[in-house]
């Protein structure tokens, strides 16, 4: 990345900071934690030379860094989970949305809070960010099988909590060479 990284970083924050906090809040359930997460991910992204072709690419990179950092941080800092659970019991933490009733907003937020950090991150990256299983696995440092499991378990829990019949992904199968074939190869 050339000297222009500073311009990209500044433009990204000015144009998309609010949206990035919104994305991070689907993971943390807390706006304060979301803001910390976003700023840490921004610094981690722009403190290295990276090939980021434009604002959209930079934002996509930061979003994945937010998810990865969320999983890593949530695992080591128990207080984040406790904070999420406390916040989930307080419905007036976000601004009102005109097209979503109070009841459904509470239920969704609380349903998300009940997922494990990895389930939440995998569900958000697959369904909100529209990443493939492989892209999600690479972003979070998980195997594809683990991503499929977390998404499956997470969506199943959300379905129960939201009383919805959310579609579950069909498991994918890929041809795998046998150990003997590998040895001969």
């Amino acid at each position, binding site marked *: 990345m050339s000297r222009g990284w500073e311009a990209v*970083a500044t433009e990204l924050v000015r144009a998309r900071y*609010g949206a990035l906090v919104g994305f991070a809040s689907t993971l943390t359930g807390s706006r304060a934690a979301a803001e910390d997460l976003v700023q840490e991910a921004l610094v981690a992204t722009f*403190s290295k030379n990276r090939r980021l072709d434009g604002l959209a690419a930079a934002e996509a990179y930061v979003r994945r*860094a937010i998810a990865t950092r969320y999983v890593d941080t949530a695992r080591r800092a128990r207080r984040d989970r406790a904070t999420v659970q406390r916040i989930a019991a307080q419905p007036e933490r976000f601004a009102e949305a005109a*097209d979503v009733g109070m009841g459904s907003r509470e239920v969704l937020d609380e349903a998300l809070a009940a997922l494990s950090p990895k389930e939440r991150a995998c569900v958000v990256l697959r369904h909100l960010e529209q990443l493939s299983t492989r892209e999600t696995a690479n972003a979070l440092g998980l*195997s594809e099988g683990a991503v499929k499991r977390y998404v499956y378990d997470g969506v199943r829990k959300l379905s129960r909590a939201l009383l919805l019949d959310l579609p579950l992904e069909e498991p994918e199968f890929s041809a795998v060479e046998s150990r003997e074939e590998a040895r001969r190869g």
Partner: protein
Amino acid sequence: MADELGRMLGEAARRGELHEADATVDAIAARVVGASRRRRRVRAVTTMAASFAAVAVLAVGSLAVSQWWGGDSEPAGHALDVSASQRPTPAPSEAVAVPSPSAGDAYPQAYELTPDVLDQAGEGWTVDSFSMALDPYGDSNPDLTPAVVYLENPKGVRYLAATLPLEWSHDLRVVAWHEEQREVIVWRAITPADATGSANSAALNLETGTLTPLRLTMPGGVPTDTLEPLAVDTDGDELWEAHGTADDGSAVSRFYRWSLLEGWTVAALSRDVQLGPDEALASPRLTPLVRADGGAVVLELTEEVSGPDGDYWQSAGRFVVYDLGRDEVTSNPLGDGCVVGDWIDAETLGVQCDTGANDVEPSEVLLDAASPLGAPIGPAPTPGELDTVGQRGVVGWKTSTNIAVTYRDCAC
């Protein structure tokens, strides 16, 4: 994949959006840029120091060598500016200078690896790998240059062991050296998009240059999709974490150990740890708790519990310490609200405990003294210290593997 859940999550994200005044956002932007600049300066100083160290080592052999990126593209030739007594083995007149790999002038110069050179490998020698350092969030099919593996003698003279196929050049590192078998184990940290179902670890035969993918068969006949290195100790014992997908789509994982005497066996982590029906061993991969000498690994136990607000994972109140050399695992209690931090010494772990006042209190845990964990350790290497130029892996003769080699840049 537009779907109902995606729509709901999108609405949740929009509800959580922040709408700050321009002055506030400008201040945030300035803070981000300033912090990023400071971190870049620190990283630049570290890189320069590492480069000077590498050049100093190579100067011992007085061999003109290209720098890792750029520099001279032509081999230095056979003439060495050293006395006969300092001549590296084999003598230059017996060695054949090989042209740089097709990557051009981005790789160090090297000699041909002949059988008699391999016979001389011993203490002080290393196996080095050079590969592109790929962006885990970037293009899954980037333009690659081949990864290369060298044998390097104590005087810094390199011998080309193999130029790897492109599909094995995604962020590749050498992670273990099976000296008696004359093979090294390589691992690609990123699976290329067109390698569906392919292994991510392989054995490279130093004599023939052939690459054999590593696959294991787990319970239920489930083949491994991925095999990830976790630790390699001074004796060459290795701990790996395997993942696969069963026929019903569920994920299967297992810990395996490789040793010279026994080859591949199920590690005590998967054999002897009694897990409750809702318990799991938390993978140490993202935040490795491997002791610096590779001899021990810490894993926390987590359990899924049902609460009034649904199911969630929490600490199971204990962690296990795995002794790689003895293939034994011991269980230790973990206080309520505590998480394991880092190794302080061979028998002491640092932990952090939530005091309940939105704060954490550091403390130390002395491990079971009845199960000594081996030699004292040195300072733990920091992740990324090998990531100064491209991606480089280094494994020494009869030495433990630097745990930083298994680190993946996750932008964290």
